[in-house]
């Protein structure tokens, strides 16, 4: 997991080129337009991050995204194990799950806003729903991937079905679940922001909406940059948790055990 200095340098160069291109476009062809310059965004960013309102809204966004991800993980793993292990559950749910899979959670946003209002609950519910399906699907795949020899081993030692599910099937499915959660994590953040942007839920989405409504483009872009950085942290954190929990799995062994 050691990053080579050369790699780091190349990444930094790529980043600087992107920023320079932005500055060029903003001062050249689009000067005076809605795209602010890098410098004005930077100044605004510095002004924004010292306000208490910013940190409250940041904390709200992170809180809702994490809570949504966590609750959908718990529910998704439990449901996935049920659906994956018991045939009647599978047949009873397959039509509903396959139907819901291609529907993005944003589609039902108006309905949820109508029921729950422009609240944190509304945002949480959308995140929960958006992350739930992929986690269920991956858990089902993981359950089906559990080795029959491992199950037979547990059964031959007199373990009962609930204990086998908990101690053999669930850990076997963890690599699949880990991938699902890692992929869902940025989605949780996106849905939280969109719920604020379009549904009026609290957090950074709402702040962005207010900046846009007030025509304060430098602040708008400052907040977008904050979101980008936040997304990177989210991705990094979930990857780190995955690596830690799945240190025994083939794909992580080398990094975790020399």
């Amino acid at each position, binding site marked *: 997991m050691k990053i080579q200095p050369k790699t780091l340098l190349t990444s930094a160069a790529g980043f600087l080129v992107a920023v320079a291109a932005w500055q060029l476009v903003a001062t050249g062809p689009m000067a005076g337009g809605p795209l602010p310059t890098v410098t004005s965004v930077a100044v605004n960013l510095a002004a924004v991050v010292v306000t208490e309102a910013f940190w409250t809204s940041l904390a709200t966004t992170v809180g809702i995204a994490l809570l949504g991800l966590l609750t959908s993980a718990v529910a998704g793993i439990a449901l996935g194990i049920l659906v994956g292990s018991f045939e009647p559950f599978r047949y009873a749910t397959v039509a509903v799950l396959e139907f819901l899979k291609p529907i993005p959670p944003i589609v039902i946003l108006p309905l949820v806003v109508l029921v729950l209002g422009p609240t944190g609950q509304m945002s949480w519910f959308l995140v929960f729903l958006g992350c739930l399906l992929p986690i269920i699907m991956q858990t089902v795949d993981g359950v089906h991937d559990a*080795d029959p*020899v*491992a199950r*037979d*081993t*547990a*059964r*031959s*030692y*007199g*373990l*009962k079905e609930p*204990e086998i599910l908990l*101690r*053999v099937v669930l*850990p076997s499915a*963890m690599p699949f679940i880990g991938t699902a959660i890692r992929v869902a994590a940025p989605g949780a953040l996106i849905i939280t922001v969109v719920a604020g942007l379009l549904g009026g839920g609290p957090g950074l989405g709402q702040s962005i909406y207010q900046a846009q409504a007030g025509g304060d483009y430098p602040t708008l872009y400052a907040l977008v940059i904050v979101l980008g950085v936040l997304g990177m942290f989210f991705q990094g954190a979930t990857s780190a948790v995955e690596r830690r929990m799945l240190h*025994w*799995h083939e794909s992580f*062994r080398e990094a975790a*055990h020399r």
Partner: protein
Amino acid sequence: MKTIFSTSRTSSAATAAQPGKNAMTEEIAPADTTSAPPRLDVSHLAKTYGMGDKARTVIEDLTFTVDAGEVVCIVGPSGVGKTTLLKCLAGLHPSSSGRAAIDGRTISGPPPEMALVFQDYNRSLMPWLTVRKNLMLPLRHLHLSAAELKERCDDALAAVGLSHAEHQYPWQLSGGMQQRVAIARALAYRPEILIMDEPFASVDAQTRFDLEDLCLKIRRDFNMTILVVTHDIDEAVYLADRVVVLGSKPARVLRIVDVDLPAPRDQITTRSLPEFARQRTDVLSLIKRPA
């Protein structure tokens, strides 16, 4: 080592296993009360998969017994249904007809006094658990005291010579060591009957000899009844008191060969005995001969 394993059987191991015993097996009044029933009694066992036209009989009619403290090897051509037989004996599959019984009780679910060692150690050991935790996995539902849990794991690891590897993960060990972990897990469960399915088929020849001797040592030290399925005739003759030779297909008993090689057996001296050569030729000719 000997005393540790035999004493605890009478203490918490026996009481912990007792309720399970009644639940998993049906009491059957022995017809013949004059002599003790064999530890393991397989009579007219048959296994058919599927129904009607698609029915496939894997085991036709198997009858043999294993006495207490005996090592019995089952040999036969590959694909003869040896693994199916073990799964029936271990209570993982119901048999289609006939019965298998332990001490006169028909096996209808995993018997608490039996442990199974699979050929595929890398599929049977849990990669997310350390060696010690793999050993503890089957013991959790026995609700042992922490002291007994520790003692059982320590003893089992010492018996297979892996005390130093308890905190490693199975995949950090060599194939032979992993199979020793699987055997240690069975020992920690303190079974009276140990059943092994091609246990040494996936390791190199030298390790194979070591593991065969480990198997004989376990029988000697813990007075265990051991049933080994193998396709290796030399191995069967070296290990067994009796060899059950199966013919295909479907599986049936061709003959039960008594192996009277002197104990203790040794890889070099036993295998060079003329008697050893004669016994293995006997078994081999049974298998090679067209049925």
